[in-house]
């Protein structure tokens, strides 16, 4: 189970009431675009602390290189903080909240992969930071286990997959790099861990690698879904017994579930009536799966679908707006579940051009709160969707002999540059309903 999911219900205190009113209402937040020069925004998945504050990052092409900012939305809702990482060399990064309520950030700068831990109350205060000076990191991602160890994955040279474990103090434990027989073709960033310390990592060509807590590889496999290669559009999640993955190709969205001990895939689900793009997912503490996707490339609609543990659809919803071209489906939408709330982040507006806007929705996981909501000059509608889904069964290939795997000695560079507290952005927010 990833960090965000393991924190489920953390905002409900021991006395049975919620603190700070954070769970009282859903909201919509839309970030102003004033800090970017051409509007090519890329929003991250949201992270939620134990008080219900929501943290999210936005990479924006302010100039070259890209600029990366972090935002904090309080329970009101309102934008209550903005911090700039600095001018970085990659639009993609990730934010998370540690089990002790501090902010973790994984990013890149000058061809280094960097993970930093900042005080969650005053993120300008560093707790630790470390960087690996290797390759040209892309698609970086990370998760944290219950002991505070941080597992990071990113694309290195020739699309090799770099995989690194740090302990809760930020000290590197081990590193691995893996490529296929032609020396490239790996390079994924999807990552998950289970409660036994095993990690799961996806390559560029949809191969999943499992490692034990010491970094030793135990098996490689790939489903027969034959998804198109899309290293950063793919999600891996574990619960107590199953590894779940999602990928997509053309008009298909496929979800497969694989027993953690190996064996036969549980199921996969095939979307048949929308040309899908960049589907990602999350799983709640009851095992329900939530999929978010936009249709490609000219649709104006974002779809959210909830499946139960049997693979049946619980509900289908969609978000549309009167803003520009609706959802910017050239960027990845994300969904995060915490307790009875889901946090959906995406960019709206055209695929190209200067009017792309980062959006964040907090909505109930039961599918309620449908309706039309005015935010600023635009109307946003959250309503029932009518996609057609059919299901079939997946099979898996063993690829153990195809990929090379080698130890990798990461650099261990102390990097504790502080976040800059700034106030150049604004957010328009409203409660839902």
């Amino acid at each position, binding site marked *: 189970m990833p960090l965000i999911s393991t924190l489920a219900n953390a905002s409900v205190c021991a006395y049975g009431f919620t603190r700070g009113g954070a769970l009282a209402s859903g909201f919509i937040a839309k970030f102003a675009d004033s800090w970017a020069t051409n509007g090519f925004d890329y929003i991250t998945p949201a992270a939620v602390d134990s008080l219900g504050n929501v943290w999210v990052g936005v990479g924006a092409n302010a100039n070259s290189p890209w600029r990366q900012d972090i935002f904090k939305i309080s329970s009101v809702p309102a934008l209550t903080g903005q911090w700039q990482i600095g001018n970085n060399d990659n639009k993609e990064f990730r934010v998370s909240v540690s089990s002790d309520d501090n902010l973790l950030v994984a990013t890149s700068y000058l061809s280094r992969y960097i993970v930093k831990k900042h005080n969650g109350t005053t993120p300008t205060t560093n707790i630790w930071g470390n960087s690996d000076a290797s390759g040209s990191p892309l698609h970086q991602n990370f998760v944290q286990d219950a002991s505070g160890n941080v597992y990071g994955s990113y694309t290195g040279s020739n699309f090799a997959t770099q995989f690194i474990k740090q302990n809760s103090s930020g000290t590197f434990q081990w590193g691995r790099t893996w490529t296929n027989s032609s020396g490239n073709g790996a390079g994924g960033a999807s990552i998950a861990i289970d409660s036994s310390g095993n990690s799961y990592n996806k390559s560029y060509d949809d191969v999943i690698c499992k490692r034990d807590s010491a970094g030793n590889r135990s098996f490689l496999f790939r489903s027969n879904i034959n998804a198109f290669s899309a290293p950063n559009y793919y999600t891996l999640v574990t619960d107590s017994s199953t590894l779940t993955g999602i990928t997509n190709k053309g008009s298909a969205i496929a979800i497969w579930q694989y027993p953690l001990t190996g064996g036969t895939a549980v199921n996969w689900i095939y979307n048949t009536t929308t040309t899908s793009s960049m589907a990602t997912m999350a799983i709640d503490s009851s095992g329900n799966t939530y999929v978010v996707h936009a249709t490609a490339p000219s649709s104006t609609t974002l779809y959210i679908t909830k499946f139960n543990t049997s693979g049946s*659809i619980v509900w289908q919803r969609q978000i549309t707006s009167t803003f520009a071209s609706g959802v910017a489906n050239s960027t990845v939408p994300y969904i995060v579940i915490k307790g009875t709330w889901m946090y959906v982040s995406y960019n709206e507006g055209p695929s*190209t051009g200067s009017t792309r806007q980062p959006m964040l929705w907090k909505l109930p996981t039961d599918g309620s709160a449908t309706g039309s909501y005015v935010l600023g000059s635009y109307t946003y509608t959250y309503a029932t969707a009518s996609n057609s*889904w059919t299901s079939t069964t997946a099979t898996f290939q063993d690829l153990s002999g195809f990929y090379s795997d080698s130890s990798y000695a990461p650099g261990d560079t102390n990097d504790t540059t502080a976040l800059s507290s700034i106030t150049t952005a604004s957010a328009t927010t409203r409660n839902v309903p």
Partner: protein
Amino acid sequence: MSQYIDPNGEYPKHIGDIQLEYPLWDETQKLPKGWQEVLESEIPNIPDGYKLIETMPIEIDGKKFRNFEVEKYTDAELLEQKIWAIRNRVAAGQMITAEEAKLLIG
């Protein structure tokens, strides 16, 4: 996968949609008044260049079944798919041709 028609004739609806109106209802119980279950049916073969379309359920012997048809992709949809494939290659750091770059710029 269970799918339903609601009392207003809207399709598809799902378990969670029923439970929003009847929170204690589950799949082992009789459907609430006005709701109809839609049963699975065979998916037709989908030739290359075609897509699957689901229309309103059909009734056979008093039961509702899902109804699928195939429809040819339009030229605009095929172009979108081509552009999308180019975007993915760019996102993965792969080279594209000048002609493909023109397609991306539009």
